[in-house]
């Protein structure tokens, strides 16, 4: 924290002992290039979290209400395996499958998609986040979906509502608090992601975490790295505050 206010002299590691305090490290962060990284981190994270919920919710619902006991156990087993499986392994697997030298390259070129275009790499980073978000969200939502009384949707259906509308009016609103907190958990995970954008983004798509590491590793500007860290800490604490607010609202609504 203190380090972030020290003046940085280029060409040496860390701040000079007793360097004067300055706000310059923070002012630098107001520049468009850093703002761009922050915005991109949030954009990709929010989209990935929303898509993650869109996949995880039907999966959790079907695992609880539709699948046979064996399929249900298999789904839960797969999700726990994925959570425990190294994120590095999963990121590498995605790069090997969808990346610029991956096995799908001929298909991508045939479809006219350039695997090195910026939006494709952004999508790939999003896919990496998604690979982590879906299992976590599914496991988080299982309990919540289990607690929703299935007779409510049945009642709506017997009163003439189509099944999708019955769920839209009963199951989803009743699991809304869980959906909100699953979204915020995914968002905290995504905005602090480090390995995923580093491997899949190949230096073209940077997240805030990568900027911190670059400040430290490549140019040894500790004070600036510390300033980015403090900003990031603040941002993620705001999101965490959102999580606890959502939980409190949920407890009250139960």
């Amino acid at each position, binding site marked *: 924290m203190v380090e972030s206010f020290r003046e940085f002299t280029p060409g040496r590691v860390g701040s000079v002992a007793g360097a004067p305090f300055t706000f310059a490290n923070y002012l630098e962060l107001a520049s468009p290039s850093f703002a761009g990284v922050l915005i991109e981190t949030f954009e990709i994270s929010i989209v990935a979290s929303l898509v993650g919920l869109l996949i995880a919710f039907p999966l959790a619902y079907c695992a609880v209400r539709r699948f046979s006991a064996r399929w249900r156990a298999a789904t839960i087993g797969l999700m*726990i395996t994925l959570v425990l499986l190294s994120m590095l392994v999963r990121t590498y697997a995605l790069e090997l499958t969808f990346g610029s030298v991956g096995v799908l390259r001929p298909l991508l070129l045939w479809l006219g998609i350039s695997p090195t275009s910026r939006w494709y790499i952004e999508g790939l980073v999003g896919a990496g986040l998604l690979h982590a978000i879906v299992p976590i969200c599914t496991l988080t939502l299982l309990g919540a979906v289990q607690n929703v009384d299935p007779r409510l949707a049945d009642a709506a259906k017997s009163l*003439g509502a189509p099944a999708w509308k019955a769920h839209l009016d009963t199951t989803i609103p009743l699991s809304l608090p869980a959906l909100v907190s699953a979204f915020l958990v995914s968002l905290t995970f995504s905005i602090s992601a480090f390995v995923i954008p580093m491997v899949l983004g190949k230096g073209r798509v940077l997240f805030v975490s990568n900027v911190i590491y670059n400040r430290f590793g490549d140019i040894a500007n500790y004070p600036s790295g510390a300033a980015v860290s403090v900003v990031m800490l603040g941002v993620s604490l705001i999101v965490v505050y959102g999580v606890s607010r959502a939980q409190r609202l949920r407890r009250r609504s139960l």
Partner: protein
Amino acid sequence: MSTSSIRRLSDRLAMAAVVVVIVVGLVFLAAPLLVTALLAFDARNYLGQLPPPALSLHWFDKLFSQDYVVAGLSTSLEIAVLATLVNVFIGGAAAVGLDRATFPGKDALLSAFLSPLMVPAVVTGFALLLFLSNVGIVSGFARLLCGHVIITLPYTIRATLSSLVGRDPRLTEAALVLGATERQAFWNITVPLIRTGVVTGAVFAFAISMDDVAVSMFLTDPTTYTLPVALVANMRASFDLTIAAAAVLLTGITTVLILILERLVGLDRILGQGLFRS
């Protein structure tokens, strides 16, 4: 068309959409891992098309012939085992203490213990680096161990605490009434009751420690590094299939962890251990 046939049509469409989403989701989760596993056994010397014309283990030979892999793997395993052991004790003790505690500030203490979950890993790593070098700890191994204990502690505390909260306290009381000492009651009654939580926490701590890059990257020194850090560095330099072989190796370790969990806890019961409480 009558309203009921419209209703049936819309239901069928919605059902089809849900099935498509689930199938696409599961394929997306599983397919890349299967591709990687298959390519790790590819007999060719380059990254080529699927399916591989022949299978061989030469990528594994190449993997284990590289010094950085062997050194990284042994450091990783040492750190993970030590961090897990330290955490079963610290986390267990903290959980038992917090479970009994009635003093004000108990919630704040718990939040402090769980805070590494909230703080981005890179910030933790960076802060630890600055802090440890100010304190004078510069050995790579000691720094890594500190970092890993800190980032895995929330998992052991949470899992142990939730099994403590879920146990029947009357069993301990009964033992005390029947003349057991506090110590006997703790070791003979409480510990067996919370075993599943402790095991779950330990397995998660081990897995998190084996996987961490973001914190470890700051704390390594030129001679002490963990396998994931070495792999990431190698991945940036060259992109060949030795890393696919390493991925299969790490997946093997995860499989062992899953078997331990299945044997000692049961996969369906893990959901009750508080790690996925939103």
